[in-house]
Every structure is written in structure tokens, then in C-alpha cells.
């Protein structure tokens, strides 16, 4: 491969044929390239009097941000097919990168576009990408990769295959809404958010647009759009209560009961919030024998009230 310094302006960045990574350059990379330029050459292919970038997207973005004019590049020899180049680029990244599902979707899409047979993809590439080696995986990820507007959020949220599969079961309008709101949730919450919405949609036989427009929910959606802090958490609480009304109701009653119990200082009471176990556990801290005696006698006095029995009744409900 020929090594050359090339003009940044000669790279046709709008041609993203080989691009499958979605991370932006880190602050460290930006600083490093601003201070000492690109030390590791990017890889390009010559085409129609310019260059198509094959690998080094973050480095090029950082170089542009640093105002560089020229960068070192390795030029792929002519005669290499798109599939050859993409394989080289893929394997160059493979050892260092922990690809997100969105990136894996792009990898699969590009391999297929460049003519790799799906059987080969299933057998030889999916296991290495830690994906179930079956056609279904390809079908799901291929459909996902078509939604390029959704990929940055899928990437940021580190979605799992199961979440993507469920997301694709929503109608297009629902998918747009989910992606619009997803920024308000952390990784784990995103998967749960989609799951809760799916359940409500099926249960109520309503589109999610209608569910999110309901009186109790719509103001929270607006709060998320207005980027109010913790708005995502509040929406999640409402959705959880909708999907799990019984458990939430009993838990509320239990929490209320616990508040009414006169517990000794430095004593903490916990119970199984899934309501499977019917016992409570008490964590009592005492630094001296006297403190312990005082705490136990405090506890036994509180046992004379009927708050404990009503707590156990609730737990055993």
C-alpha cells in the first residue's frame, strides 16, 4: 500500500461507503491530533480524482476540527473490490473495538451490499461479533441498519439484540417517538422503556402515539422534550405503575406502613419488593452493649402496637 500525504479537502467525506463506526472522536484524540497531527495514517481508496475514506473517520474528524490541511494516508492499490477493502477495514478495527449493536448492523449491511453471501456471514462473522449465528439475526440487523436516523441512539444506548427486535415491532411513527424520547433514559432504562411501551400498546390495543398523548403521560413527554432534569425517571415511574399496578399499589401501602413503625435509630427495615418473600429483614447497628439493649427494647415496645401485624398482613397479602 502506498503511503502519501493527502489534502484533507480531497477526501469525499459524503461517501460513507466503508464507514460503520459511530463514535465521535474523543477529547484526548482531538487534543493529540491538534498537538502533533495524525501519526497513524488513515486508509483511503482513490476514486474519480479524489479519495474515499475507508478507515480513520475519527482521526479525520479530529484533523478537520484542528484545522489541518494535510494528513498521511495509505492508498489501497487499484483492483481491490469493495468487499476486499471492507474486510480489511473490518479486521483492522475488530481487535480493538467493542462494536455496538448499531455498528454491527452497519457491518452486516455493508458486507451484504458488497456481495458477501448471507450463509458465509452467518457462519463466519456472526459468532465473532457475538451474535446468534442465524438468519434471523441478519434480518433484524439489516432492518435496523435501514433506520439510519435511529442508529446514533441505538449506539449510545448500547442496545441489545432483543431490544432492537422489539423496537422493530413498532410502527414507524412509534419508532420515531421512541428515538425522540430515548435520550432521556440511561442504557438499562431504554430497554425497559421500549418493553413497557410494547406491553401497553398490546394491552390497550392503542398506538404508542395515543398512549403518550394520555393526560397523565403527555406533560412528562413535554418535560422530556424541554430537557427538564429527571423527566425520564418520572415518565418511567408512571409507565411502570401502568404496567404493574398491583405490585406498585401493594408496595406503596407497605412503604407507608413502614413509615408508621417507630423503629429505633440506626435500624433499617427491608423487604422483598417483588413480594415473593413474605419476611422482613432488619438491619440494626449498635456500637455498644447499651446501644443494643436500647434498640432491642425500642423494637419490642414498637411490637406492642399493631403496625407490625398490619405490615405482615400486607406482605402476606
Amino acid at each position, binding site marked *: 500500500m502506498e503511503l502519501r500525504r493527502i489534502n484533507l479537502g480531497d477526501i469525499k467525506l459524503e461517501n460513507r461507503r466503508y464507514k460503520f463506526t459511530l463514535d465521535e472522536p474523543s477529547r484526548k484524540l482531538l487534543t493529540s491530533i491538534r498537538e502533533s497531527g495524525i501519526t497513524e495514517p488513515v486508509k483511503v481508496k482513490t476514486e474519480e480524482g479524489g479519495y474515499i475514506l475507508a478507515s480513520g473517520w475519527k482521526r479525520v474528524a479530529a484533523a478537520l476540527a484542528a484545522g489541518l490541511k494535510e494528513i498521511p494516508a495509505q492508498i489501497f492499490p487499484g483492483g481491490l473490490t469493495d468487499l476486499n477493502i471492507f474486510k480489511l477495514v473490518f479486521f483492522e478495527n475488530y481487535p480493538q473495538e467493542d462494536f455496538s449493536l448499531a455498528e454491527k448492523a452497519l457491518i452486516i449491511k455493508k458486507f451484504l451490499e458488497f456481495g458477501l453471501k448471507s450463509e458465509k456471514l452467518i457462519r463466519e462473522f456472526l459468532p465473532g461479533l457475538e451474535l446468534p449465528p*442465524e*438468519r434471523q439475526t441478519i434480518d433484524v440487523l439489516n432492518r435496523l441498519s435501514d433506520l439510519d436516523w435511529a442508529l446514533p441512539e441505538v449506539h449510545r444506548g448500547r442496545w441489545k439484540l*432483543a431490544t432492537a427486535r*422489539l423496537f422493530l*415491532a413498532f410502527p414507524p411513527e412509534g419508532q420515531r417517538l421512541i428515538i425522540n424520547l430515548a435520550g432521556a433514559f440511561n442504557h438499562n432504562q431504554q430497554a425497559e422503556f421500549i418493553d413497557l411501551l410494547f406491553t401497553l400498546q*398490546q394491552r390497550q390495543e392503542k398506538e404508542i402515539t395515543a398512549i403518550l398523548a394520555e393526560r397523565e403521560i403527555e406533560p412528562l413527554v413535554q418535560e422530556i422534550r424541554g430537557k427538564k432534569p429527571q423527566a425520564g425517571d418520572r415518565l418511567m415511574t408512571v409507565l411502570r405503575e401502568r*404496567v404493574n399496578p398491583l405490585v406498585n399499589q401493594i408496595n406503596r401501602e407497605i412503604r407507608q406502613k413502614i413509615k408508621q413503625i417507630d423503629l429505633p435509630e440506626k435500624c433499617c427495615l427491608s423487604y422483598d419488593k*417483588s*413480594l*415473593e418473600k413474605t419476611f422482613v429483614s432488619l438491619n440494626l447497628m449498635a456500637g455498644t452493649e447499651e446501644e443494643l439493649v436500647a434498640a432491642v427494647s425500642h423494637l419490642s415496645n414498637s411490637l406492642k402496637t399493631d403496625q407490625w401485624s398490619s405490615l405482615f398482613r400486607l406482605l402476606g397479602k
Partner: protein
Amino acid sequence: MFWFKQLKKIYVDRQVKNSALVKKILDHLPNLPVRIVSSLEEIQDELRLAPDPVSESKRMLFLTREKYFIRPCPCTPGCVSCDYWTLDLNLNCPLDCSYCILQAYFNHQPLTIAVNQEEIKKELEVFFSRQNKSVIRLGTGELGDSLALDSLTGQAVFLAGLLKGRKRSFLELKTKTAYVEPLIEISPSENLVLSWSLNTKRIINSEEAGSASLEERLATAARAAKYGYKVGFHFDPIIYYSTWEKDYEEVIEELFKQVPVEAIAWVSLGTLRFPAKLKEIARARFPHSLIYEAEFIQSWDGKFRYPRPVRVKVYKRIKEIFETHNSGDRLYLCMESSEVWRDFKGQNKKGKPEASPFPWLI
């Protein structure tokens, strides 16, 4: 049988290609392409390429041999175990229930028949010689319907023969079909229990593709009971939905109209439970099913279950209905925690749970 029509191909393990049972099965299905294979992987490679590998796996028949047949029923950690042994001659099932755990349990497993059933004799001898329990229960319905493949394999009569004379060792054949013909032609063994999974008409119609109707199941159970077999019933999975109470009551009333209490060996109750993986698969395979969209908690074993108050309410109500037919003592719970058992069984006067929760121990 309906499912013969859905079969697309037969694979024969090279090791068993000369077996008499293979020949019999191939004669039975003369129009299907047959391929001799050296390993299961060859079939799995094909299944991986199917758009829906679970559905496809039910269309491929694999005739092979198994090394071992008997295993302790895995139950689930933290549950009150009912001490059951599974006897697996077949893997996978031609029926297609939306809640079937096999969808998540198997990894590209075709409909598999172990044709070396003769070898089970020796394993059974060793198994019985090691058992010291007063009652031993074995069943074939763990990894597929016990009778769905029987018209091809003749396993039911074969196994009945092997268990004959072994008092207090029960063999259970669990099914959702109405196929008991071969068993009605032999003299009934008292330790062979023919069991039917029962559900409400609504659930059978919407969630149990390929199974016999409730009427057919009950009529067949009544026929078997009349012929002299002990019968069992499994209300499993019980699905909690708006009209569950009325619908299950209807099933139970219908059951007692047709089957005498004396013929019933046991009745198990188990509400819907499933691992997350199954929900993912089943939601995609059964987009119209609503059973995965109820209120669930994730319990101690990682499985999703209805909240305990719901389960207890359902079990208690079903128990009440059975008690009106003097048959509450036939009931036991499947894969339930000790808390739920305690609420279900109640306490005796000394505050201890009632002894012998399992009907076959009474």
C-alpha cells in the same frame, strides 16, 4: 395426523439407518425427501438459515439414537420439587404452543426421535435398582408432547410394557392430543397414567396451535378412564385474564361431567412462568398473543411470574372448585415457592404445613 402434513424432510442419522423403527417410520411417510446425515450439526446448519428456526425445526424429522434417556426433572431452584423423573425418547414437539419453553430451551433442534428405544430397557433396570423411594414417577412429556409422535413410534405401548408389574412406579404420558388408540388395544396397566394438559377454550384456541380441542381431550380422557386407566390433568400454564375464573370453572365442571374422580391420579396447577429469552422469541413468533403482556414480577429463579397474590388467588379458587367435587386432595402445585405452597395448602393445627402435599403419597 395434522402435523404429518407440515413435515418437509426426514434426516436419518447414519448410525441408525438400518434400524427397524427407521424403516417403519420411512414407510409411514413415503413422500418425504430423506437425507442421511452424520451429525445433528448438519441439520442445525440448515435451521440457522430459516427465517423462523423454531417453526422450521418442527418441520424436520430427525431419526437418531440417544445415549441416556432418564434424567431427574430439573424443576427450578427454590421451588418445592415433586420428585419427578423425565424419560426423553423424543426431543421437540410438532405442536406449537405460544408459551412453550422449548422455543427457548432448544438450540435448533429438529423434531427428534430416538429409535434405539430397546436400549432403554437396560437403563430402566439400573434406574429402578437404585431407587429407594416408595413412589417413583416418570414421565415422557417434558421435552415434547408424549403422544404426538406415537402413531409413528409406538412408544406408548412399548413403555407401558416395560413398566408393567412395577407397582408404585408410575409412568405418565402427558399430551394435548386425542390419540390413545394403541393404548386402548392393550390391557390397561394400573401404573400407567394418561394425562392431559387442560386450558380454557379461549387459551386453547389462541395459544395452543395444533392441539386437540378441550372437548376432544376430555372425551379421550373419559374413554381412557372408562377403559381402566388412571388419568391425570395439568392446568399448566394457567393464564390470568379478565374472565379466567369463569372460564377455568367451566373447564373443571366439564371435566367432572366426563371423568369420575376415582379415575384421577393427580392434577397439577401451575401459572404461566417464563424466562426473558422466551418472551423475546414468543413475542416475535406470536405477535397477536397477549399472554406476555400481563403484570409479572421477576422471581427468585429469574423467571417471570404473576405476582404472588395473583397466583395464590388463582390456586385457591381452583382448589375451591375442585373441593366441590371432593377432589381437592388430587391437587399439587408445579414449580412453586414454599410461600405459595403454604398459602395454598393452609396450616394444620400445630402451625406446620400439611403433610404429604403430593396426592400420590397419600
